[in-house]
């Protein structure tokens, strides 16, 4: 195969370049738009596979563009980046298919798909950012690209949600800017380097290093929805279903979590972070978020809001695993980054189908929907069971590693935390499944005028991702499974500490 040093850039440009074209396409050119969307998404998956194949064979990708003296825009394709890029490429393809069906007759499709594409480009940029400066750039781009998606419906409620979303994320972005500036000022570099770049600074000015850690984590914690910075996430549920799916599975929330991984491992270095005594508070925050999110989820009647609080809780598993500072926990964290994405996207797409097909938006309306939409609800149920942590599904694998990691780190209480969380997960998901499968539909619901048959564009994607949930759980130990990949990454981050 020929060598393509620009491959990461090309992958970025597939969606970045498609965005303006999609935006400029007239509203009526629906077919052209769909074709372009799918083609670009498919090409991207192919390119990512190619990139992974090359990278696995030792090709190093490293692209730099000097922006200011000493500051580069830096794209690279380390294993961690590859993992996140692969996740976003695959899920983007699925979500694009779903969106085509979802927005079939809706207004502003040009705008939607343009920004949708931009959003994925930002995610790819975040994944492949080789330094915090580049990360910041795409992090802000993500904010901007998602805003029009969140307010897509253009109602007062949507705009209010959008405003809250913007305020949270832009303030978080400002904090990240300040943190990046401070890192640049203190360490003289913003590069992501395994083992970190802060050793000297921490030795000389530990207080400054601690402050910087807090600042950066808080900045990223906004998007990662760490309590108490999570306020925007449940409100942003006014967005159309595919947007919520993308936001929760790969784009926004994951960008925050991914940033935390980069900062802890490659800006500070896990040992330094431990030495600075900042991982302990981070564990505490993560633990509180896990429990708090679950408790709030219990009380929600709106399906999407319940799922949103579930995300608050589940994404903090990643933070927890990172902060536990052991290789096993790290594997759990990284694996959960992928697993949670696949599970959550399934549930959101399924929830969207319920709303589209049956007009069901609340838990209390879910009686008997399993019989009305068996495929969709099967996918939903599978993902929910996985989320609870039932073996052999994906969620179980990551929770297993997290628990092991907790023991390895001497924090046995983590097991209690995970068990408690799983119980709560069960408490807020099982009633849904019970209603869907074991109760009869109320007569009004059965004859509701909102009922319509959903197209294959909508029905297929959640079933496909549910298939992923099954496969990555059952085949967790197969080569090239997400779990194996994370093992490989963690080996690298911990300098062969496994």
């Amino acid at each position, binding site marked *: 195969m020929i060598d393509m040093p620009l491959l990461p850039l090309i992958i970025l440009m597939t969606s970045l370049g498609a965005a303006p074209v999609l935006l400029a396409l007239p509203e009526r050119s629906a077919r052209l738009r769909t074709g372009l969307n799918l083609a670009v998404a498919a090409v991207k998956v192919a390119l990512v596979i190619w990139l992974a194949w090359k990278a696995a064979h030792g090709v190093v990708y490293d692209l730099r563009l000097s922006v200011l003296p000493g500051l580069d825009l830096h794209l690279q394709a380390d294993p961690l980046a590859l993992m996140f890029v692969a996740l976003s490429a695959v899920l983007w393809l699925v979500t694009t298919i779903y969106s085509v069906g979802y927005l079939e007759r809706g207004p502003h499709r040009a705008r939607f798909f343009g920004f949708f594409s931009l959003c994925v480009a930002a995610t790819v940029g975040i994944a492949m950012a080789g330094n915090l400066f580049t990360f910041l750039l795409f992090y802000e781009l993500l904010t901007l690209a998602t805003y029009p998606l969140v307010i897509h419906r253009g109602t007062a409620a949507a705009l209010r949600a959008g405003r809250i979303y913007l305020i949270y994320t832009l303030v978080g972005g400002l904090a990240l800017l*300040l943190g990046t*500036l401070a890192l640049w000022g203190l360490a003289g570099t913003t590069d992501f380097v395994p083992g970190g770049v802060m050793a000297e600074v921490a030795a000389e000015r530990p207080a400054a290093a601690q402050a910087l850690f807090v600042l950066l984590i808080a900045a990223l914690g906004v998007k990662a929805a760490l309590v108490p910075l999570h306020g925007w996430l449940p409100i942003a549920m006014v967005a159309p279903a595919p947007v919520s799916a993308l936001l929760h599975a790969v784009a926004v929330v994951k960008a925050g979590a991914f940033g935390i991984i980069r900062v802890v491992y490659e800006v500070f270095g896990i040992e330094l972070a431990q030495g600075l005594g900042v991982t302990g508070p981070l564990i505490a925050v993560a633990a509180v978020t896990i429990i708090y999110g679950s408790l709030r989820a219990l009380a929600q009647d709106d399906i999407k809001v319940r799922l949103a609080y579930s995300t608050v809780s589940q994404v903090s598993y990643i933070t927890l695993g990172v902060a536990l500072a052991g290789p096993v926990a790290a594997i759990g964290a990284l694996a959960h980054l992928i697993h949670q994405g696949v599970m959550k996207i399934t549930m959101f797409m399924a929830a969207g189908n319920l709303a589209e097909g049956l007009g069901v938006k609340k838990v209390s309306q879910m009686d008997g929907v399993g019989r009305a939409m068996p495929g969709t609800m099967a996918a939903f149920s599978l993902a929910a069971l996985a989320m609870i942590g039932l073996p052999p599904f994906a969620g179980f694998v990551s929770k297993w590693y997290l628990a092991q990691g907790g023991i390895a780190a001497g924090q046995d209480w983590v097991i209690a935390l995970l068990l408690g969380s799983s119980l709560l997960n069960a408490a807020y998901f099982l009633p849904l499944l019970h209603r869907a499968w074991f109760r009869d539909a109320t007569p009004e619901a059965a004859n509701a005028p909102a009922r319509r048959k959903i197209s294959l564009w909508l029905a297929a994607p959640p079933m496909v991702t549910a298939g992923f949930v099954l496969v990555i759980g059952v085949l967790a130990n197969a080569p090239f499974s997400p779990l194996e990949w994370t093992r490989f990454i963690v080996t690298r981050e911990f300098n062969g500490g496994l």
Partner: protein
Amino acid sequence: MTDVMPDPLTLAILLPLFGAIAAFLLPRAAPAIGLGAVVATAAAIAVLGHLVVQAGTIFVPLGGWGAPLGIELRADGLALAMLGLTALIALGVGLGALAAFAGETEVGGQPMARQRAFFWPLCLLLLTGMNGVYLSNDLFNLYVMLEVISLAAVGLAVLGGTVAALRAGLAYMYASLLGALMMLLGVGFVYLQTGRLDLAGLAGAPDSAALSAAFGLMLVGLALKTALFPLHFWLPEAHANATAPASALLSALVVKAGLYILLRLAEAGPFPGEAILTLMGVLGTGAVLWGGVQALRAERLKLLVAWSTVAQMGLIFVALARAGLEGLSDSWRAAALLILAHAVAKAGMFLAAGRIKDVIGHDRISELDRSAVRPALAQLAFALAAISLIGLPPSLGFIGKWSLMEGAMMAGNWHWVAVTMAGTLLSVAYFTRALTGFLRFDRVRAPLDEHRGWALADAPPVVLAGLAVGLGLAAGPILAVLDLGTPFGAIP
């Protein structure tokens, strides 16, 4: 310089002048002549750029006399960057003007045909003045150039012919004249002290009361011309009530002339003290906050954009002050980057605002969302420009703000970082008001008129705003151009 004939510096000034003359003589052909002149000027600037890259700073002693007796033109990286910027914006605004003045008549204002005919001579005279300022190395000549700019700018500000525009134009005229006259008296004091008029004459001058008076007068005069808070009173109405292409030129370019001269004065030195520089930063802070608050309260879109100019100009002063006198030899870069960023973005934004106003029929912010017609591309251009003005990556505005904050942080001046952050938040808040109007749909009564494709009129704002965002990636080359001929001496 004599090997090239005639030299591109003079051409950069005289080509637009010839264009203005031709456009005035042949009103019907004015748009074609105007665009041709802008392109020719850009070509001269390209030649000049080639020379500056090769030789560094270039001096042209006009008439062969040389300073101090004669007037010298001087071109270095900073001048080159400003020339290029001005040509770019003139081209963009000129193309935008083709569409903006395409209609027949406007209620209560000048007939469109007259606006079209008079826009070009004035625009080209403005270009003559701007390019003259960038290349000038002589204090009195700078005063004359400022007056050329003033008259052309006033003409552009009142082009629409409405009462509001005329009132604002007259207030602008008075402020502009007073600023120029202060500059003139300052020049008198310089002559009193040094006996010469070239900028180089300032360099070796001893610190004295007369020189302080000269600097004081010139700084106040230029602050008035650049609308530094609290001398900004004339700007919002003048910029908001002009027709869109004129607003774009006024906001993007005209206010920059004063700033540029200020940079040149600071370069020539001796700058009258740390306290004055800090005061400029403090007033800049005032502008950032007051301009931001007023933009939040503005009822019309163009007024919001005009107030944002006040805030952004303030930010440029903060950039100059960010690291004190010691740091001035680097701070000017941050200021220059912000000048470039603001110019490109604001030109795009005003053109976009004009398009929005033309298509929707008004620019009342609270009622933008009632319109069934949505000029999608103009709104996109507005949003893109806003990204740069807010300072989000990767825009040029971001690079400018980054440089500002980086220098302030390195010098330990965290208060300037805080001001920048506050300004950023304010700008998010006020631009979101406009975006909300663009994106809200539940108050529309009539069926929505969907985006149906491109109109040529959308291209200039979209391209300018896109450049404002994209040029951030070219910050490296831009900085390299700025450093040609090492303005402000060697890099510290």
